[in-house]
Structure formats: structure tokens, C-alpha cells
């Protein structure tokens, strides 16, 4: 479980995150939604220690993450970044094996166990067949799955994903999120995922947090957060929320209703 308490982050004098409080439970998927520039990526980066924290704290199992070394933190928390500007020349196997970094000795030697965990991670994202290929030869969807595998090889109880579906085709988006959902439900990971697609958040998340201008405006189940008034105000756009025709989740549609 991940507990974010009163987290404030600033770039220079500009406050990006203002007293954010959020709990990410184990075995659940928590989606972070909000318009561009709301601070979703900053939240992921500050929790993972890449962006310095102004005040507040991030706890897991009674440990303050910001007080840990990057290696200790990398054993607790793995991040799946967006697959942009990847070094193209490493093979898929080499890339995923780098997830084992926090467990290696100072020479960076890998053991048979590291090989096993790398193989498992690749199987988990259904990409073992790609092991010998170079990252640069893969499609965006495949690269994103490899980055998920690398995070899984880190064997952490917490998984953070920063808009992993941003540039993917529909089938890859659904594929990836099904895997992520499965990781929370079957493996008990605490998953925090920044998503820009509200309907994917509605379908795959147990909890949704709406981040607007660095503040959490609402959080709860998808049904509680994905309300027309909340979403319209956050995105400055009139929206309709209807019931999904087959699944028991809300469906957000842009546009004003004529009847109103």
C-alpha cells in the first residue's frame, strides 16, 4: 500500500502539486485522471523520487520513501514510463534484465535467478518471443509491454504507470490495462496509473482520483468521480455521462445534451 500525505511539489516558484493526499491500496487499481498539465506526471515522478518534494511525505509499510536511497526505493516501487525516446539498440532481454538493477552487486552481475525473473516478466506481458529483438525494431505497443515487463522484473509491491496507453492503438490499450488489472487482482500489487482516457479509467480502475491544477478535486469509485458536473468543470467542456451498454460502468461522452 502506498500512502501520499500532503504532498507539495514546486518547479521554481510555481506550485505544481498542492497538498495532495491519496491512498493506493494493494490489490487495487487506482487511476489518476485530469486534464493536461494538471500534475499527473509530476505526481508519479515525485513519488518515485525523480522530482524533489517540497513538503509532505510518501509512505509504504511504515517507511518514508523520500528518506530511502534510490536503490532501496527501487525495490519497493517500480515505474512504467511512456515509451518515448528509448535507446533503440538494447535487446528486449537486456532491457527487461535492467529491472533487476536494485538487486545486483556493484559489478552489475546477474544471476540465474535474475534470468528466471526476467523470463517470467516477459511471459507475463506475453512478449517472451520478442526477447532477442532490439527495442528500436518494436512497435509502440510492444515497447510499452517491454517497459511493463521491466517494472515487473523489479519485483516490487507497488507499480506506478505514467500514461502508458498514450500513443497506443485501441487493442494495445485494452491489452495493457487488462494485464495491469490482473497484476493488481492476482498478484496483489498496489497500482497507481495516470490515464488520460476517462472511459478506460472507468472500466479498469477500482478507485479514481481527479487531479486539477495540482489539487485532488474528487476521489472514489468511477461512478462517484465520473459525474457530469465534476468532469465538465475540470475539463472546461460540457459532457454527458451515460451507462455503458454492456458493462456496469459509466461512459463519458463530450458534448452538451440538447434536452437540457
Amino acid at each position, binding site marked *: 500500500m502506498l500512502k501520499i500525505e500532503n504532498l507539495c511539489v514546486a518547479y521554481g516558484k510555481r506550485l505544481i502539486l498542492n497538498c495532495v493526499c491519496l491512498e493506493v491500496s494493494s490489490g487495487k487499481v487506482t487511476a489518476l485522471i485530469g486534464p493536461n498539465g494538471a500534475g499527473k506526471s509530476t505526481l508519479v515522478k515525485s513519488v518515485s*523520487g525523480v522530482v524533489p518534494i517540497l513538503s509532505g511525505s510518501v509512505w509504504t509499510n511504515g517507511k518514508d520513501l523520500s528518506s530511502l536511497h534510490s*536503490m532501496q526505493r527501487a525495490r519497493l516501487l517500480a515505474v512504467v*514510463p511512456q515509451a518515448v525516446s528509448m535507446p533503440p539498440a538494447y535487446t528486449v532481454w537486456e532491457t527487461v534484465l535492467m529491472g533487476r538493477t536494485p538487486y545486483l552487486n556493484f559489478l552489475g552481475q546477474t544471476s540465474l535467478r535474475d534470468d528466471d525473473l526476467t523470463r517470467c516478466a516477459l511471459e507475463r506481458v506475453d512478449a517472451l518471443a520478442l526477447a532477442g529483438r532490439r527495442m528500436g525494431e518494436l512497435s509502440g505497443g510492444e515497447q510499452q509491454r517491454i517497459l511493463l515487463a521491466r517494472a515487473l522484473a523489479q519485483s516490487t509491491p507497488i507499480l506506478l504507470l505514467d500514461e502508458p496507453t498514450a500513443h497506443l492503438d485501441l487493442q494495445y490499450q485494452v491489452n495493457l490495462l487488462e494485464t495491469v488489472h490482473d497484476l493488481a487482482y492476482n498478484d496483489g500489487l498496489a497500482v497507481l496509473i495516470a490515464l488520460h482516457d476517462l472511459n478506460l479509467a472507468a472500466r479498469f480502475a477500482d478507485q479514481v482520483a481527479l487531479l486539477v491544477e495540482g489539487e485532488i478535486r474528487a476521489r472514489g469509485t468511477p461512478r462517484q468521480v465520473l459525474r457530469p458536473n465534476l468532469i465538465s468543470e475540470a475539463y472546461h467542456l460540457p459532457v454527458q455521462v451515460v451507462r455503458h451498454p454492456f458493462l456496469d460502468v459509466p461512459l463519458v461522452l463530450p458534448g452538451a445534451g440538447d434536452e437540457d
Partner: protein
Amino acid sequence: MRRRFLPYILIFIALVLSVLLSVAIGSVFIPPGDLWRVITGQSPRIITQAAFILTAIRLPHSVLTALTGAALGGSGAAYQAVFKNPLADPYLIGVASGAGLGAVAAMAISWPYTFWGLAAVPLAAFLGALLTVFTVYALARIGKTLPTTNLILAGVAISAFATALTSFLMLRSSGELHRAIAWLLGGSSQAGWGPIMILLPYLALGLGALLLFGHALNLLQFGDEQAQQLGLNVTRTRTLVLLIASLTTAAAVAFSGVIGFIGLIVPHIIRMWLGVDYRRLLPMSILGGAVVLLIADVLARVVLAPQELPVGIVTALAGAPFFLWILRKTKSQGYW
């Protein structure tokens, strides 16, 4: 397992062959038969002259050349990794010029050909290199990030400045001008085993330490954020690698002058051959640097024989087209 060690075996054979070639060729050609007899210690009376040339002149020269090449190949690979730029090279970022300035300053103050006079030169070169690398670092740095473009631009500017100062110092200390120019162009005019004894500890320390960073340098290729999220202390790693690579470069520059393009060419050839894994790329670049500089040095002595060219001219003539080729290649496709 065999595939893993094959490149090392091949490069080791190439190293032995190029050392043999390097000691055999010169103003007096030593036939392979005599070479063999000297090495194995058979019938030394018949070929004492050859033996003297070999052990007192040729061999130290070859060893110095090999060590210099190793230092430039290894530090070139390290700079390319840290700056994530295929064109990073001790020259491009100004470290070599800084080291040259330090060395020339030490020589301008005193040019005594004694042990301590010699030992002071690499120290001054190291100070010059460090001063350059951290000036460049400070100039290029924005907050906590280090954009590559800034770094290269700052490197070029500082390099021009250091080169101008070096020229000024050389013009002022008129007497040894010719020798200093020859040295600066990469003609290792200093003979004997003395320089090697001083160079060796610097290089053993520097290159040995560099080899520990293979995995860390792999991680850095994914960007600072991902490297840190994977558990690497990015700032510390980068500072340490820069320090070590600068020490290594400085030691090589202090004794062999400013030899360009080895640090650029060699890691590229190895990368095209074996891929980008720095755990293998670093040791192979070190060994490959030795091989390539030995061959360039043989060419420098053969092309206009009996006159010997400074080896820096040969590496620049071969290296500049290579540089342009890489520039084109990196634009069109991403094998980097």
C-alpha cells in the same frame, strides 16, 4: 559461453599482432626471426644491436602507444555513455585541450627531463582536464539537468579558449617550441621506460575503475529519470565516471600529446560489432583503442619513411571522415 569470450580472444590476438608489427617496423627493420629470438632469449650475442633497439627504444614506444590508445578508447566510450551522445569524445568536450593546457603550463614553467619533472606533467594535465570538465559541466548545467546540446557547446567554447592559451604559452616559451608542437600533435617523442612507469599507475587505476561502471552506464542510456527509478544514483555515477575518464584522458595526453578521434572511432566500431552493452563495450574499447593506435602509429612511421609523422596527424586524417560518416548515419538511423 564461447560466443561471449570470442571477441576478447580475437581482440587479444589483434593486440599481440599489432605490438609485434609495431616493434618490428622502424628505421631499422627487425626480421621476424630475430624478433622471435630476442623475445625467447635465444642466441643474444648475434643480434645484440637488434635486442638493444627492441628493448630500449621500440618496445617502450609500443607500450606507451598501446597504453595511450587504451586510455583514449576507454575514456571515449565512457564520455559517449555519460553524455548519451555518439559524438562525445575527449576532444569535443574540451577535456583533452584542458589537459594539454595543463601539461604545457607545467612544461613552460620547467622542462627538465627528470623523473619528477615528468611526474608533474600528468598531474598538471589532470588538473587542467578536471578544471575544464567541471567548468563545462557548470556552464552547461540547468538546475539539476545537463542537456547534451549545452554540454557540447560549452565544451567547444572552453576547448577553443584552452587551445588559444596553450598556443600563447608555447609562443612565449620560445626555446622548446618545436618539441612542444610535435608533442601536441601526438608524437610521443619521450623515449624509454620512465614515462611508462609514471603513466601505468594512473591508467591502471582509471581504466580499472571505469570497468566497474558498465551496468550503470547501460542504465544511463534510458535517461536520468528511468535510471534513477531503476535504482541508480545518477548524479554520483555521472560525477565519478567523469572524474575517472578525465584522469585517464589527462594521463594519456600528458605523455602522448593530443591525439584525436581514437576515443570516437574505437567505441563506434566495437558498438557496431558487438552491440551497446557497456559491460562489454568498455573493456573491448580499451583493448581496441590500443590496437587501433598501434596500427596508426605504424602507419605514421611508414608512410613518409624515414621521416616519422606525429601519430595525431594520421588519426585525424582517418578520423575526420569517420566522424562525418557517423554524423550522417546517426541522422538517418538509430543504431545508437
